[in-house]
């Protein structure tokens, strides 16, 4: 029995010693860290993508906890659901942000935009852009070297080998904005997904006057102003020979699409237009050709 006794005494003494030391040290060196930071971090998606503008999820969590006004804090990956959970933890209200998706605003395919030069340098859009306007007469359009694709962490983009343009895979895109950041030509924009994923936007960023623009690319926006006139909701503005559609104001009426002489305005995820009786088939086809993304049309979400 002796051994058992010694055992108990030894161990208990050690345990007690440990407890006492720990207690006093803990008292003396107390550092307060808001436990909510951990809690918020737990609900965040841990993608650490920087889409929120902070260097990582933890930094964002700290910002959530420390800032009084969190209306300009938003985690695009987690979306509204995560934000409301996080807001609940910190007890503040979140800004309601409509879900968005990345949109490529250039339709300068090899076919639409003749190549005037051949670029042979490092495969990086930024590098190419700092030295040259591109391989075509349009110095605004896509350079086709895929920096946006490389930037995407969610496999939501690929380069279409035929058109030479990047394509966004809508289902995968979480609107983190990495591609927007990456593109040196500011071609990619985050736009509201829109009801039934329907969107209308000007697929061009060329600011040249009509003539040169058209010469460089057959589907360029020439700033003619027809769409601006036809829009009943003031959603379209023209600046520097380029039309821009405000997605907050756009009501998806599609009038502008019809009047655009160069087919620069794209509509996405709308059902195929009924062929007008006058001109069977052909016009529908031509829209499709100019807007490759339209292909998804056949399976609209409505049953």
């Amino acid at each position, binding site marked *: 029995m002796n051994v058992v006794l010694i055992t108990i005494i030894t*161990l208990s003494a050690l*345990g007690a010693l*440990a*407890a006492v030391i*720990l207690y006093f040290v803990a008292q003396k060196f107390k550092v307060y860290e808001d436990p909510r930071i951990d809690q918020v971090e737990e609900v965040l998606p841990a993608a650490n993508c920087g889409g929120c503008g902070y260097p990582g999820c933890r930094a964002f969590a700290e910002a959530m906890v420390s800032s009084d006004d969190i209306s300009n804090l938003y985690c695009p990956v987690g979306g509204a659901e995560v934000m409301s959970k996080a807001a609940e933890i910190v007890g503040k209200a979140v800004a309601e942000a409509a879900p968005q998706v990345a949109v490529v605003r250039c339709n300068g395919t090899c076919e639409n935009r003749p190549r005037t030069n051949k670029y042979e340098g490092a495969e990086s859009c930024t590098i190419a852009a700092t030295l040259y306007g591109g391989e075509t007469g349009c110095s605004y359009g896509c350079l086709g070297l895929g920096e946006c694709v490389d930037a995407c962490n969610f496999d939501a983009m690929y380069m279409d080998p035929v058109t030479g343009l990047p394509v966004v895979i809508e289902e995968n895109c979480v609107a983190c904005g990495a591609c927007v950041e990456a593109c040196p030509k500011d071609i990619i924009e985050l736009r509201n997904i829109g009801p039934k994923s329907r969107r209308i936007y000007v697929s061009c960023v060329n600011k040249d006057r009509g003539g040169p623009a058209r010469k460089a690319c057959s589907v360029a926006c020439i700033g003619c102003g027809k769409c601006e006139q036809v829009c009943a909701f003031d959603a379209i503005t023209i600046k520097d020979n380029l039309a821009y559609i405000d997605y907050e104001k756009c009501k998806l009426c599609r009038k502008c699409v019809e009047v655009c002489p160069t087919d620069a305005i794209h509509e996405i995820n709308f059902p195929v237009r009924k062929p007008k009786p006058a001109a069977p088939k052909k016009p529908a086809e031509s829209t499709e050709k100019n807007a490759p993304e339209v292909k998804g049309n056949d399976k609209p979400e409505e049953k």
Partner: protein
Amino acid sequence: MNQWKNFSKGFFKENAVFTLLLGMCPTLGVTSSAINGLGMGLATTFVLVMANLVISLIKDFIPEKVRIPAFIVVIATFVTIVEMLMQAYTPALYESLGLFIPLIVVNCIVLGRAEAFASKNSVGASIVDGLGMGLGFAMALTMLGSVRELLGSGKLFNVSIYPEDYGMLVFVLAPGAFIALGYMIAIIDKMKKA
């Protein structure tokens, strides 16, 4: 169903060795043969289950500040028990596992599970969790041990498969342990994706 999931996650999805990379020292240190791996795995399983059991029982009575020391005492108790039992009844295995038996106490899996699971869950779930994790660990160790034994000395569980002269001794030694585990993890990652 849920219990089954809880049990099976330790084998693949959250396998301590292949995915969580915990408990690497015994994993590499004792797996020069399949039987050593199995022995170590089972010893760890025993500690894991018992520790999970006890900790889930007492979790509500422990002040925050002494949580870790308390858990460690519990774990260490069971490790010492295993140590003494093995010494008494399987002395050969005890010798070949050597230092790594007392080191079960610092195996990150054991403490990790106590912290992450047993201190938050019911007794039943904790036992199942410990069993799953432990057996998953044992499985990984046995696999690694088999590979190393087979490549290194042409044997499997001490049964000669091909002449020992053709074995690559490296695999019995330290470098082989790292390399074999590296490629095993690569293969398992690949299988998981497929």
